[in-house]
């Protein structure tokens, strides 16, 4: 047998496991209606694929996950979809979430089951897609999609199978191993194949499950494929040995560095229930539509393990076990240490529903007011993460988030061992959950405000750039005008006439260049924006997968998803703009010469040249008339601009230039009048 390591802390609450393993796993009568929640685990809502009124077959996919999050959902039995909408689900809030409601027809008519006993002949990528489409999710904890966990791109050396089931009362994994150990071993082999056949496969199990251990031993001995050895690591029963971090420490003697994923140590952990579901999905072609659920507690006359369809109302489970409603003090989903108290029994089960405890008054801690902390240190001794819960409590009460983080609040696994031992009845873990929530919210808000600030700064920069561009254009125009004026003065003085033409051309060139600068700059800017939004999107997606992997809570995931969506939208917008720009560019260049950049300039030059030539041909009075017309045109344009302009500063500028133009026009007009009258 494999060497195991000691872990600090831990407690030994009464196990209460015997009452639910008196009988083998039993089937449940088919409930008349099933509610399949679209939101099976934190943050991932699947999209329905069926419509109300549609008939569905057992195992038919009825909802598809969003890309890279969540798992597909399948009809647990054949029947008709009668509703898709909000229904209360098994969540402590008791708030409704969207569910697909199916009225069962009792025929249990299966889809065509696509079986792959020869899974090793399939490429890994195909197998991963299959696992995702068949809805396999982590059944031991947070329901994280198994395909994502098995798609690790790091080299894996240890596949660690969690058969610990350290919470009191729960016997779902225990009974699974007693009866179906060989099938679970096939699941190990599938996972092993996907992970590139890691060097070691170890099943971690507590010594309070001798029957399961014996069944595992027999099944391992009977395996034909002896090459890929599977080892057993048996260790003393202690809560919470089944925590991922604790199990890694027990089996390898190593600690998962704070904030790291097991894959970084070359380890992947899988729960036995998940591996069994994996085997069913691949080898038997049965998507995850049922699981083994323990029903226990003294308020039920019968205790046991049941093959439960996902979506079965909890009340049906309890009713089958002869619930005595008057004895029921608390209904708990999960174990007594980390489980959630359900607000009602009219809720459907989900993929992670491993246990329901219908506890009577003797089985739950009476609600007592907390007494002051006497600093007894029992909590610190019980903490498996070697934290100082009483110090954390102190800082949580006074909301000192910095201090909380300095005392490694985020390494708390929320096992509740500290609350369990605290003689002053302080709900320590509740404070820690709240503290974490507050800090996460603060971080999310900070991220949001950082984003807003960035956006503001970006906009500010853009406006400044625009202003600078305009200024440059204005100056270029002014320069051109001055040159033209100088040339004109020379012309008036009887100098070479074509000077003025050259000046006009130069001015036109300058104008065109000033105008030209902007599309190129715009394109550069957009390209830059696209690159940065791509990077941001990537980062957001990475964070999201990480958070999902960690089983982060709902609000956090939502925030991350929002951030990701925002980044995606931004990217799309920038790409769209670039495409538009390219389209207008190509449109303008299509009727011009090969050099589109120079096109506008050359056209302006041509125009200037034409007008200069025309002027040359004109008589002085004609010249004056044309000048007058041009001035009138400019004046009209200015007036138009003035009307549209809202900025007061700009308005002033426009007004003054309009006044100047007007004066010039008036002067020209009088002289032309004079001319006309032959003065």
């Amino acid at each position, binding site marked *: 047998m494999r060497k195991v390591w000691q872990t600090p802390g831990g*407690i030994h*609450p*009464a196990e209460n496991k015997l009452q639910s393993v008196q009988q083998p796993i039993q089937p449940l009568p088919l409930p008349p209606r099933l509610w399949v929640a679209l939101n099976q685990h934190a943050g991932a809502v699947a999209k329905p694929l069926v419509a109300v009124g549609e008939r569905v077959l057992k195992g038919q996919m009825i909802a598809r996950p969003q890309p890279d999050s969540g798992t597909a959902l399948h009809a647990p039995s054949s029947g008709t979809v009668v509703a898709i909408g909000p229904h209360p689900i098994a969540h402590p809030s*008791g708030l409704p979430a969207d569910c697909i409601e199916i009225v069962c027809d009792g025929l249990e008519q299966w889809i065509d089951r696509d079986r792959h006993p020869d899974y090793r002949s399939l490429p890994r990528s195909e197998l991963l897609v299959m696992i995702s489409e068949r809805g396999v999710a982590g059944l031991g904890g947070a329901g994280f999609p198994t395909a994502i966990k098995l798609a690790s791109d790091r080299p894996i050396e240890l596949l660690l199978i969690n058969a610990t089931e350290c919470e*009191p009362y729960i016997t779902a994994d225990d009974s699974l191993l007693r009866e179906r150990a060989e099938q679970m071993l096939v699941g190990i082999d599938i996972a092993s194949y996907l992970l590139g056949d890691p060097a070691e496969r170890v099943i971690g199990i507590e010594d309070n499950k001798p029957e399961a251990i014996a069944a595992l031993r027999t099944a391992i001995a009977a395996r034909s494929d002896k090459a890929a050895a599977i080892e057993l690591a048996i260790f003393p029963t202690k809560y919470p040995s089944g925590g991922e*971090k604790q199990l890694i420490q027990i089996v390898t003697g190593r*600690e*998962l*560095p*704070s*904030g*790291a994923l097991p894959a970084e140590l070359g380890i992947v952990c899988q729960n036995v229930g998940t591996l069994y579901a994996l085997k069913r999905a691949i080898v038997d072609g049965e998507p995850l539509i049922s699981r083994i659920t323990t029903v226990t507690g003294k308020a039920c006359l019968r205790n046991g393990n049941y093959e439960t369809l996902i979506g079965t109302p909890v*009340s049906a489970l309890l009713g089958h076990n002869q619930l005595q*409603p008057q004895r*029921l003090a*608390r209904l*708990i989903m*999960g174990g*007594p*240490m*980390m*489980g*959630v*108290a*359900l*607000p*009602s*029994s009219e809720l459907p089960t989900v993929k992670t529903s491993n246990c329901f*405890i219908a506890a009577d008054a003797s*089985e*739950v*801690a009476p*609600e007592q007011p907390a*007494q*002051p902390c*006497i*600093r*007894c*240190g029992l909590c*610190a001794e019980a903490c*498996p*993460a*070697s934290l*100082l819960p009483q*110090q954390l409590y102190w800082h949580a009460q006074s909301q000192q988030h*910095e201090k909380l983080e*300095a*005392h*490694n609040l985020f*390494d708390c696994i929320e096992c*509740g061992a500290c*609350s*369990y*031992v*605290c*003689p*002053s*009845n302080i709900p320590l*873990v*509740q404070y820690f959950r709240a503290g974490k929530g507050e800090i996460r919210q603060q971080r999310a808000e900070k991220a949001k405000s950082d984003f807003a600030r960035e956006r503001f700064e970006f906009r500010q920069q853009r406006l400044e750039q625009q202003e600078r561009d305009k200024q440059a254009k204005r100056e270029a125009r002014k320069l051109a005008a001055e040159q033209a004026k100088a040339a004109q003065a020379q012309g008036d003085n009887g100098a070479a006439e074509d000077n003025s033409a050259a000046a006009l051309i130069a001015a036109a060139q300058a104008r065109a260049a000033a105008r030209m600068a902007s599309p190129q700059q715009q394109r550069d800017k957009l390209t830059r924006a696209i690159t940065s939004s791509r990077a941001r999107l990537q980062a957001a997606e990475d964070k999201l997968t990480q958070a999902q992997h960690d089983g982060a809570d709902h609000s956090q995931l939502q925030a991350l998803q929002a951030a990701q969506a925002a980044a995606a939208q931004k990217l799309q917008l920038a790409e769209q703009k670039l495409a538009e720009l390219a389209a207008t560019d190509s449109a303008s260049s299509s009727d011009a010469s090969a050099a589109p950049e120079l096109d506008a300039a050359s056209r302006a030059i041509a125009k200037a040249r034409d007008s200069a030539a025309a002027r040359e041909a004109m008589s002085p009075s004609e010249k004056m008339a044309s000048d007058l017309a041009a001035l009138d045109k400019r004046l009209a344009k200015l007036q138009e601009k003035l009307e549209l302009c809202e900025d007061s500063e700009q308005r002033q500028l426009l007004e003054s230039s309009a006044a100047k133009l007007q004066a010039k026009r008036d002067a020209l007009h009088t002289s032309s009048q004079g001319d006309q009258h032959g003065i």
Partner: protein
Amino acid sequence: MVFKPVSSPHRHGALSTARVMQWVLLALIPGIAVLTWQFGWGTLINIAIATVTALLCEAAALSLRGRPVGFYLRDYSAAVTALLLAVALPPLAPWWLVVIATASAVLIAKQVYGGLGYNPFNPAMVGYVVVLISFPLQMSSWPTPLGLLSDASQPSLGPSLAAVATGTGIDGWSGATPLDLFKHGVNGQLVSDFVAAQPLFSQALLAGLGWEWVNLAFLAGGVLLLAKGIFTWHAPVAMLGSLALMALLFWDGGSSHSGGSLLLHLFSGATMLGAFFIITDPVSSAVSTRGRLIYGALIGVLIYLIRVWGNYPDGVAFAVLLGNFAAPFIDNYTLPRSYGHSRARRATEQSK
């Protein structure tokens, strides 16, 4: 069916603060019994006066502070303070001495700081030191142990009550404690000669007639609490260990300047009471196990220093208060290394 939302965990361990205190009270019984057997009714009278005073003071302070009196009285912490004081004060001490000590403990050392859980100093030791400094005479007269009395019986209840009420003591029934005697009597003689000349030592098995039994009884109570998991072994073992180490290190074979033998230090005075009932008070001690080792060891060293080179024959109360002073400092440097971190942090360090 609709149920009330509650948070996990849904089960709770068997210990409660009141239960912890009840166990402490229970574990004091052997010590109280031996004190009464050796020194007469005085200890029981002390207990009665101290308990009444403590409960009255606690109730008054709580109602002044606007706290639910019944809820807090039920944690038994005032009773524990009262009993610890009652066994530490000399039997047959004047009633007002007990009242002053207890009132100081409950009011000044505990309630002024915010009640149970917030007191930086051990309340019983604060009360003890207040009267030790204010009334040295009354504090130094202990009844003669049973074995040295000619008719082998302590005064009966009537005269004892009268003595306590009038505060006059009973003539011929009081004498020095072993530590007192040793500190002031050994000068100029070899320890072996001194011990042979003093019936208090010569008739004793370990370290002073009567006192050795008292210490053994407290040791037994302490072992019971250890077995029950009320506290961990760290602080008591560290304190007794460091005291023993000091006694061995400075043992000069029994010259006329001797500091006293190992057994004398371990089994006389308030050694065992301090080790198992005083320094294990969680509120005023260091928190982590490593911290408690240091805390206990520090107090052990201080006890020896005060006993041998200080002005007082026994040093437990002062040593404990000094240890209380040091506890937050010790805590700061003894944070445990959390899972997944390569080293422990300091409590004063900021995150990241």
